[in-house]
């Protein structure tokens, strides 16, 4: 009897289950969609209710799950390396005008029209503000930085270019000259690929785009030109306005830059080729001394090699001299001296050179900005500096040597000790060259169209080095031919010539074991290219052959695909050179007319 009751219950249960399924037919595809999470809430409720009572449905779901697991057991297929390279070649071969035309004819969505309209309005407002502010104060500065700013702002403010090469330079330099200079978003986007800088070709493309721009955009540009036509003198955009207009894209550029740094394989093609280039980052700091200290602490905490370059020494020297004489001057003279000293301090800048793994540099930047927002107001990646490959002692030679002795354990220790010394020399040499090019980049184009240092300031470097983390402390005196060739675009082929001008005195200034390059920027008589002297006492020619802008605005071709790692340094394949340039926020503001 008991058996019959149990049997009856089982039969009843099965009948109920079947009845449920029949009364609520669930399409099989609903189970599939349920598995994918692609059902409505109502459908989900129904499927789940039926799954509780139907073993058949549960089995169906289980098989779907197993099948999915089976399909996911495939390893992810990675694209062959040549895919990106092949695309790169074909894209480079594609004609940009077609793209521009496509842009002009097809990008007509309402959102973009509004964007264009907004950009036109912004440009108009910016030009009007510049016009007004310029009339209020005369543009007077002898600082090469300021002059460079003025030159750099030319393409945007559409001043009359003096020469083709100057125009090219002007298109390249503004990001270095002042990271806060107002530029349109597409211009600011140049930081996205600092390795490229701005090529002449891309400038041409931009001018073509302007020609093809929508009526709204064109009207904005016309207003800008009309406004500026009345002021045929160099001008600098208001920094605050610049920050406002660039706010939308700046974080993206910064994130992208840090991402490149962190991904060592990508940095090679996107930020800097570690074999011969130096990434440059500009920081606008409220307090330059505190900013420098924080940066130094961070670099030292990470045991990163660094060399500091600053103009602190000269400023102190100037100030001391003025202080001594000030007491003998009448009050009005003293006030003038104080103003002059303040202006000098405003021009103060500190440069740190570091050679370290890209991810650590990225972390350093990230830490600086996030942990010290009160000091670091803004930062902007700049077009990198390209060093003359043949003059670099740090990569091929050492690598070849390492490769030769790597199997010989007995020689390894000796070589390693020697390498520390080599490292010190290499870092300092690279720092010297990088700073030289950096300073030269602040110059202007001479009458011959060649890039040369402006010469209104003299640069004196005194060198004593100590490499953080190394036991050897290398002392050296360097006559720093301040201003070398700049590998900034001075012609369309990407080969730029530069002249070493303005030989400088060097003096050793060991400072409690901590070495500095000290850059003084006293006003000196204008130097001419004919005064050129060898840049470094090591006989390193600083006539760089630049490829910074050599690819005509196309994808960077460093001989490989997008992600090719061209770093030859077997010790650390992700080693990146970088200049941290700390510029006073006060100077940025003061520089604006």
């Amino acid at each position, binding site marked *: 009897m008991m058996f019959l009751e149990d049997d009856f219950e089982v039969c009843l249960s099965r009948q109920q289950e079947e009845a449920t399924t029949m009364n609520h037919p669930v399409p*099989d*595809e609903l189970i599939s*969609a349920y598995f*994918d999470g*692609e059902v409505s809430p109502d459908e989900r409720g129904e499927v789940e209710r039926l799954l509780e009572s139907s073993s058949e449905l549960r089995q169906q779901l289980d*098989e*779907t799950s*197993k*099948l*999915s*697991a*089976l*399909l*996911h*057991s*495939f390893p*992810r*297929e*990675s*694209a*062959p390396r*040549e*895919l*990106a390279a*092949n695309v*790169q070649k*074909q*894209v480079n071969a*594609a004609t*940009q005008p077609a*793209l521009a035309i*496509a842009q002009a*004819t*097809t*990008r007509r*969505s309402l*959102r973009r029209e509004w964007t264009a309209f907004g950009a036109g309005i912004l440009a108009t407002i910016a030009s009007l503000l510049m016009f007004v502010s310029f009339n209020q104060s005369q543009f007077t500065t002898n600082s090469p930085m300021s002059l460079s700013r003025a030159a750099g702002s030319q393409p945007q403010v559409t001043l009359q270019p003096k020469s083709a090469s100057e125009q090219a330079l002007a298109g390249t330099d503004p990001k270095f000259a002042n990271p806060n200079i107002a530029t349109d978003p*597409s211009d600011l*986007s*140049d930081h*996205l*690929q600092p390795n*490229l800088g701005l090529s002449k070709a*891309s400038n041409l493309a*931009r001018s073509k*785009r302007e020609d093809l721009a929508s009526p709204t955009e064109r009207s904005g540009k016309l207003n800008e030109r009309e406004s500026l036509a009345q002021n045929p003198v160099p001008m600098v955009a208001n920094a605050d306005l610049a920050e406002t207009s660039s706010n939308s*894209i700046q*974080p*993206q550029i910064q*994130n*992208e830059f840090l*991402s490149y740094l*962190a991904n060592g394989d*990508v940095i090679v093609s*996107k930020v800097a080729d570690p074999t011969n280039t130096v990434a440059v980052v500009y920081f606008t700091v409220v307090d330059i001394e505190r900013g420098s200290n924080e940066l130094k602490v961070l670099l030292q905490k990470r045991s990163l090699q660094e060399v500091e370059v600053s103009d602190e020494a000269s400023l102190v020297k100037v100030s001391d001299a003025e202080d001594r004489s000030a007491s003998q001057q009448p009050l009005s003279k003293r006030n003038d001296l104080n103003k002059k000293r303040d202006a000098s301090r405003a021009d103060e800048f500190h440069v740190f050179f570091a050679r370290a793994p890209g991810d650590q540099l990225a972390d350093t930047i990230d830490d600086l900005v996030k942990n010290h927002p009160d000091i670091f107001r803004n930062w902007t990646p700049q077009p990198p500096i390209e060093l003359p490959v043949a003059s670099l002692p740090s990569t091929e030679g050492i690598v070849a040597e390492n490769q030769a002795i790597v199997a010989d354990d007995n020689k390894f220790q000796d070589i390693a000790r020697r390498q520390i010394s080599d490292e010190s020399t290499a870092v300092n040499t690279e720092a010297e060259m990088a700073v030289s090019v950096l300073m030269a980049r602040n110059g202007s184009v001479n009458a011959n169209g060649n890039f040369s240092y402006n010469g209104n300031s003299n640069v004196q470097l005194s060198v004593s080095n100590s490499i953080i983390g190394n036991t050897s402390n290398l002392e050296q005196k360097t006559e720093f031919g301040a201003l070398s060739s700049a590998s900034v675009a001075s012609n369309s082929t990407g080969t730029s010539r530069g002249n070493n001008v303005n030989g400088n005195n060097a003096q050793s200034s060991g400072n409690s074991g901590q070495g500095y390059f000290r850059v003084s920027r006293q006003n000196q008589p204008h130097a001419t290219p004919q005064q050129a002297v060898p840049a470094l006492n090591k006989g390193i020619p600083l006539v760089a052959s630049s490829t910074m802008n050599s690819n005509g*605005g*196309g*994808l*960077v071709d460093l001989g490989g695909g*997008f992600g090719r790692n061209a770093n030859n340094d077997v010790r650390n394949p992700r080693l990146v050179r970088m200049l941290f340039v700390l510029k006073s926020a006060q100077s940025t503001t003061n520089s604006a007319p």
Partner: protein
Amino acid sequence: MNQTSDQTLIDHCLAGRREAFGLLVERYQNRLFHSLVHLLGSTEDAQDAAQEAFVNAFEKLGSFRGQSQFYSWLFRIAYNTAVSSKRKLRRMSVSLEARRDASGLEPSDGNPTSEPSYAMDVSDRQRLVQQALSELGEEFRMALVLKEMDGMSYEEIADIVKVPLGTVRSRIHRARLELREKLSVLLRSEVL
């Protein structure tokens, strides 16, 4: 760390910065290639299709209106490229020798049940699955590959294939049914 959005990169491209397109290539080449391999059944065909798709996308970038995801748009181009090239989107009922050439995989007799499941290693299972996939009808294979291999939503698939959402659901279900039938022995084995 936030990535630069696709739209920003596209805007840079349209502004003349071709290198921004390089970022898009880097961003999507693996995903696209992976899906195309399983769709076309051959790494060589997948590479060709992906390459053509990227170049075509660059040339047509001005026509991208941002109404769909860039990748969806890119995949659509790749799909059309493959179709226009008459690649093996049709049912791949080809000879065993041709299968070996196309996929680089060893051919089998087409009947998974004849395979000794106990001896199956990973590559064997992959071969069987790839073969079963290749025998699905084009529309079913595409829907399933986009869902399973690419992780797309039904809506994204519908956008690419230009069919209603319900059709996508139906195709994926049918593809699964057919695959489950073809791979029944494998699915019931202890290997999984």
